[in-house]
C-alpha cells in the first residue's frame, strides 16, 4: 500500500456516496458552464474586435505622430500613396491602404450637412475595411473615376439623395485654401455603425488630394493583419522598415479604438460577477459537505489523535479529501465543457433574434466559442481553489478536538 492516507481519503469520500456526488455534481455543472461561457466570451470578444476593426480603423495605422490627439489637416504624411505601395511590397501584404481625411459641408439641392470626407485608394480599401462591401444602393468607387462619392445611409436620407444625384461640398484644404467640388453619388453604404452611416463619405484619394491641395500628402496608412494575433509581430516589422519619429507614429488598434478594450473589460466585469456567484455556491456546498463529514467522524478523529496523530495531520486528511473531490469535479467538468464547447465552436450556435441582428449589423449570424487553454482552465481552476479554501473551516474544527472527548462521541 503506497499511501494509506490517500486510500483513506478516497474511501472516506464514498462513505456518503450520494452526498459526495451531489457536491461533485455541483462542481461539474459549474465547471462545464464556466468553460462554455468563458470560451464563448472570448469568442465573442474576438468577433467584436474583428468586426469593429474591420469596419474602419484596421489593426494598425501609420499616422503623423500628432494626428491621433489632434486630427488636423496639417498633421499629414508625405507621399502617402508611394509609402503604402512600398509597405505592401516590403511586407508582402496587400491589405494596406492609404487614406486622407477632411471635413466639409455637403449640400444637395435641399439641404446641407457636415461630413467627414475620406480620400481612399479604392483598389485597396476593400482589403482593409468592410465598408466598401456594405454598399446597399448603387456601387462602390471606381478606382479610375473622379468626381464620384459614396455616402452613409443616414447621411443620404438626411440630404435626400441617392445614386445619380449631385452633391456640392465645401471645406478648407491642406494649405488652408478653399476646397470645393461637385461630385455624383454612386453608392450608399449601411454599416450599422451609427457614426459612419450618419457622417461619412468616401472619394478617390487622387481626387481628394487634388481638391484639398494635399500635394501628395495623406493622413493614414491603414493595415489589416491576416489575423489579430499577428498584429504585434507586424508592428515590429513595420517599425524596422519605418522607424517611428516625431513625424511618424505606428498606432496599435488599442490606441485607435480605445473604447473597445473598455467595452470588453466592462463586459468581463459583469460576467465575472455572475461567475463569482456560481463559485461561491459551489464553495458553500463543499463547506457543508466537509463540515458534516468532519462532525460525523468525531469519534474516528479522536481515536487517531489518541494514537498520536497531530491535528494538522487530520486537517491535511480533510484537505486531501476535498482535493480528491475537486479533482473529480475538475476532470469531468473540463471534459464535458470541452466536448460541448468544441462541438459548438465548429457548428456555431445562435439564439432567437440573433440572425436579424447579424444581418443588420454585418455580424456573423452564428456565435463561435473560442476554446483555449485559458478558457478551459480559468473557471474550473478558480472553482477548485474556492473549494479548497472552503474546506479550511471544517479542517480547523479538528484543532478544537480533545481526544478522549472526541472518542466518547457517538
Amino acid at each position: 500500500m503506497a499511501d494509506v492516507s490517500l486510500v483513506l481519503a478516497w474511501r472516506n469520500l464514498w462513505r456518503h456516496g450520494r452526498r459526495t456526488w451531489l457536491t461533485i455534481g455541483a462542481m461539474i455543472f459549474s465547471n462545464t458552464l464556466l468553460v462554455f461561457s468563458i470560451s464563448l466570451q472570448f469568442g465573442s470578444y474576438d468577433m467584436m474586435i474583428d468586426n469593429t476593426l474591420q469596419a474602419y480603423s484596421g489593426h494598425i495605422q501609420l499616422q503623423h505622430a500628432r494626428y491621433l490627439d489632434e486630427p488636423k489637416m496639417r498633421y499629414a504624411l508625405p507621399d502617402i500613396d508611394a509609402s503604402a505601395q512600398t509597405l505592401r511590397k516590403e511586407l508582402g501584404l496587400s491589405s494596406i491602404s492609404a487614406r486622407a481625411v477632411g471635413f466639409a459641408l455637403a449640400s444637395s439641392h435641399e439641404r446641407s450637412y457636415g461630413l467627414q470626407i475620406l480620400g481612399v485608394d479604392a483598389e485597396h480599401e476593400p482589403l482593409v475595411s468592410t465598408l466598401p462591401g456594405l454598399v446597399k444602393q448603387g456601387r462602390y468607387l471606381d478606382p479610375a473615376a473622379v468626381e464620384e462619392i459614396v455616402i452613409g445611409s443616414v447621411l443620404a436620407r438626411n440630404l435626400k439623395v441617392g445614386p445619380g444625384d449631385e452633391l456640392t461640398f465645401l471645406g478648407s484644404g491642406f494649405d488652408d485654401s478653399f476646397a470645393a467640388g461637385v461630385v455624383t453619388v454612386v453608392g450608399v453604404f449601411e454599416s450599422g455603425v451609427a457614426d459612419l452611416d450618419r457622417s461619412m463619405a468616401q472619394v478617390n484619394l487622387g481626387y481628394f488630394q487634388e481638391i484639398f491641395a494635399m500635394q501628395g500628402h495623406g493622413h493614414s496608412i491603414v493595415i489589416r493583419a491576416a489575423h489579430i494575433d499577428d498584429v504585434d509581430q507586424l508592428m515590429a516589422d513595420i517599425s524596422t522598415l519605418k522607424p517611428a519619429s516625431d513625424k511618424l507614429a505606428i498606432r496599435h488598434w488599442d490606441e485607435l479604438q480605445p473604447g473597445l478594450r473598455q467595452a470588453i473589460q466592462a463586459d468581463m466585469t459583469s460576467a465575472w460577477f455572475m461567475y463569482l456567484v456560481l463559485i461561491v455556491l459551489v464553495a458553500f456546498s463543499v463547506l457543508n459537505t466537509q463540515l458534516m463529514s468532519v462532525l460525523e467522524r468525531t469519534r474516528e478523529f479522536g481515536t487517531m489523535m489518541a494514537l498520536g496523530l497531530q491535528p494538522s495531520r487530520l486537517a491535511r486528511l480533510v484537505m486531501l479529501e476535498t482535493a480528491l473531490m475537486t479533482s473529480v469535479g475538475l476532470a469531468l467538468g473540463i471534459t464535458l465543457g470541452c466536448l460541448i464547447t468544441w462541438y459548438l465552436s465548429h457548428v456555431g450556435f445562435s439564439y432567437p433574434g440573433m440572425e436579424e441582428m447579424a444581418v443588420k449589423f454585418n455580424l456573423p449570424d452564428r456565435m463561435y466559442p473560442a476554446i483555449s487553454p485559458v478558457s478551459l482552465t480559468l473557471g474550473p481552476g478558480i472553482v477548485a481553489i474556492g473549494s479548497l479554501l472552503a474546506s479550511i473551516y471544517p479542517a480547523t474544527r479538528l484543532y478544537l478536538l480533545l481526544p478522549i472527548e472526541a472518542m466518547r462521541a457517538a
Partner: protein
Amino acid sequence: MSAIHCHQLCKTFRQGDEIITGLDHVDISIEEGEFVCLSGPSGSGKTTLLNAIGGLDTPDSGEIRMGDIRIDQLERGPLADMRLHHIGFVFQAYNLIPVLTAQENVEFVMQVQGIPAAERSRKARDILREVGLEGMEDRRPAQLSGGQQQRVAVARAIVSHPDLVLADEPTANLDSVASTHLMGLFSELNENHKITFVIATHDKRVMSYARRLIKMQDGKIISDEAQ
C-alpha cells in the same frame, strides 16, 4: 525510557453540580518491562489513570513522569508525538478505522510514524500473522468478529514495538477463547520484546496473567501486590 512514576495524582470531574472523584492522590511506579493489571470495580478510576499516563487527559494536580519526561507538562504536539512513537493504545471499543482493511489499519499508524512503504507492508503482514489473522489482511472491520477486531487493534498498537502498551478492558467484548489467546499474546510480547504492559480490567482471567496486581477503588489504590 518506559519507567513510569506517578506522584500524588488527583483528578475530579464535574457533572452538573456534582463533583466526581476520578483519581485521589495516586502514587504508583511501574518499571520497564513490567506486566501490570489495574483492577477494581467499574468507576474506580482505571480508565482515568490510563488516560493520564498516556497523556490523553491532564490531572488536576500531581506529577506523571515517563523516564525523565513530565507527561503532565507536555504541550499537545510533543504529547501526540510521544504517543505516536512510544505508547501503544488498545481501547475497549477497538476503534478501528472502518473504511480501512486490517492491513491498512495497521499500516496507517506506521505511515504517520514515517516508516517506508515496503517495510510497513511487511511489518503489518508479520504482526497480523502473529496475532492470528493471517488471510484476513484485506477484510474491513465490519467483516471481522469482535475478537478479530480487537486483535487488529492490538496489532496496530504493538507493530512498531512501543515502550509501553496501555490496554483498557481489552477483553471486555471477547469470549473466553479469544481472551485467553489475547492474554497469551500480551505475555509473549512482554517477555520477548520487553514491552511494558498496563492493563485495566475487572476480568479475573486477565488478572491471572499479571505479575503485579494493583487494586483501585474510588480513585484510590487500595492494594499493590506482586503475584
